[in-house]
C-alpha cells in the first residue's frame, strides 16, 4: 500500500482528494491536515464521506513522511512552505498555482507578488498526463495546472502543435462557485452568487499565462462566474492556419487523444449534447473537447469542459500519482458522471 497524505484537506480540492483517495484500492490515506479543524472527523465538513472513513484531521506539525504528499493549499502560502513539504514525501503533487509557470517574471506579473522559491520553479513537471506522461513516470515534483488552464491546454495544444491555428487565441471561460474555494465572503454568499453572470476577470485571467506557456501562442482570457457549483467551460476562438480545415482539426484531436482515457472529442452534428458541457461531468475525470468551424471565415471555435475539482484538480492529480506509481492510470477515477444531473 502506498501511504499518502493531503495538506489543506478541509478545502474543496482537499475534500475531493479525500473522496478519491478513500476509495482508491492501492493507497492508504494516512493523514489529512487542517489547521482550523484538527481533531475533527473529516466527514464533518465532507459529509459525502460519512461511513467511508473514520479519519480525523490532524495539525500540520503531526505530519511524518509519506510516499506521496498532495498540497491543496493556497498559492503564495504554498511556495513559502515548499522546502518544508519537500522533506516530507518521496513525491510531492502540488495543486496550487505556485509552480505552474516556469518563469518567475510571468508569475509576478500574474500573481502580483514576487516568487519566493525561484530556484524550485524549474524542478516541477507539469501535471498534464496527456503531454508529459513519460516525465511523470519518474517525477518527484508535480505541479498540476489550474482548472481552467487544464481545459485550455487540452483543447488547444493539439491544434497548436499541429500548426493548425495561428495568431492570438481568445478564451471565454465560465466557472462554478467551487472554483473559489471554501472560504465564505460576500462574493460567494448564496443570495449574491446564485444565478450570477459575474465577469470577475474581464481581461487577463491568470490561467491565460498557463495556456500560453503550454501552447506557445498568445492568449487573451476572460472569466465569468456562472450558476453552478462545479464545472468549467471554455469557449476559445482561434484562426485557422492557411489551408487547414475541419478534417485536419478532427485528425489532430483523434491522433492525440485516441488512447487517452480521460479526453473525449465531442463535436456532433445532432442531438442535445453536441458540444462539451460541464453539466454531465460532475465527479468525473473527463475533459471533453469539441470544435466548430465558421463556414464563412477562417475562424474556429474550440470548446472544452471539465469538473474543476476533478480533471481540473484532484482527479488529475491522482491520475498523475497513478502514473508515477506505475498503477493503472484510471484507478480510482472511473466514475463516469451523471445524466441527468
Amino acid at each position, binding site marked *: 500500500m502506498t501511504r499518502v497524505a493531503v495538506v489543506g484537506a478541509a478545502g474543496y480540492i482537499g475534500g475531493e482528494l479525500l473522496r478519491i483517495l478513500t476509495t482508491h484500492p492501492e493507497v492508504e490515506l494516512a493523514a489529512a491536515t487542517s489547521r482550523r479543524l484538527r*481533531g475533527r*472527523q473529516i466527514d464533518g465538513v465532507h459529509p459525502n464521506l460519512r461511513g467511508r472513513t473514520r479519519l480525523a484531521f490532524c495539525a500540520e506539525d503531526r505530519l511524518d513522511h509519506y510516499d506521496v504528499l498532495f498540497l491543496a493549499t493556497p498559492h503564495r502560502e504554498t511556495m513559502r512552505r515548499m522546502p518544508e513539504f519537500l522533506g516530507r514525501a518521496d513525491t510531492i503533487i502540488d495543486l496550487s498555482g505556485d509552480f505552474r509557470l516556469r518563469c518567475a517574471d510571468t508569475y509576478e506579473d500574474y500573481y502580483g507578488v514576487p516568487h519566493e522559491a525561484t530556484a524550485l520553479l524549474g524542478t516541477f513537471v507539469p501535471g498534464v498526463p496527456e503531454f508529459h506522461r513519460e516525465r511523470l513516470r519518474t517525477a518527484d515534483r508535480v505541479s498540476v495546472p489550474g482548472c481552467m488552464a487544464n481545459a485550455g491546454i487540452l483543447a488547444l495544444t493539439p491544434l497548436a502543435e499541429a500548426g493548425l491555428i495561428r495568431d492570438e487565441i481568445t478564451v471565454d471561460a465560465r466557472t462554478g462557485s467551487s472554483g473559489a474555494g471554501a472560504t465564505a465572503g460576500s462574493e460567494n454568499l448564496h443570495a449574491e452568487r446564485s444565478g450570477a453572470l459575474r465577469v470577475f476577470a474581464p481581461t487577463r485571467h491568470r490561467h491565460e499565462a498557463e495556456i500560453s506557456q503550454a501552447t506557445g501562442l498568445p492568449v487573451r482570457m476572460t472569466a465569468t462566474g456562472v450558476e453552478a457549483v462545479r464545472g468549467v467551460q471554455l469557449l476559445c476562438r482561434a484562426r485557422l492556419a492557411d489551408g487547414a480545415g475541419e478534417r485536419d482539426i478532427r485528425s489532430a484531436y483523434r491522433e492525440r487523444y485516441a488512447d487517452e482515457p480521460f479526453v473525449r472529442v465531442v463535436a456532433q452534428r445532432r442531438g442535445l449534447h453536441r458540444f462539451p458541457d460541464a453539466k454531465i461531468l460532475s465527479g468525473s475525470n473527463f475533459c471533453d473537447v469539441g470544435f466548430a468551424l465558421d463556414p464563412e471565415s477562417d475562424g474556429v471555435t474550440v470548446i472544452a469542459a471539465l469538473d474543476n475539482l476533478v480533471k481540473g484538480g484532484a482527479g488529475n492529480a491522482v491520475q498523475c500519482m497513478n502514473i508515477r506509481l506505475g498503477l493503472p492510470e484510471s484507478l480510482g477515477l472511473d466514475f463516469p458522471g451523471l445524466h441527468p444531473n
Partner: protein
Amino acid sequence: MQKVVNGPECPECAAEVTIDGDARVSEIVECLDCRSELEIASVQPPTLTLAPDVEEDWGE
C-alpha cells in the same frame, strides 16, 4: 497505532465514544454518532460531559 480506550457512553445519545489512550482531562472529543462535543471529565475511569454549545443561529 494510537491506543484507544474502549470508552464511555456519549451523555447525549448513548453511543460508545472512543478516546485516544493519551487523551487528557478537559480535552474535547466528538461523538461519532450525534457529533456532540464532549469534554473528557476524567480518564480513570473515562467519563465525558457535554461541552457547552456554541449557538448556531441560522436566522432564516
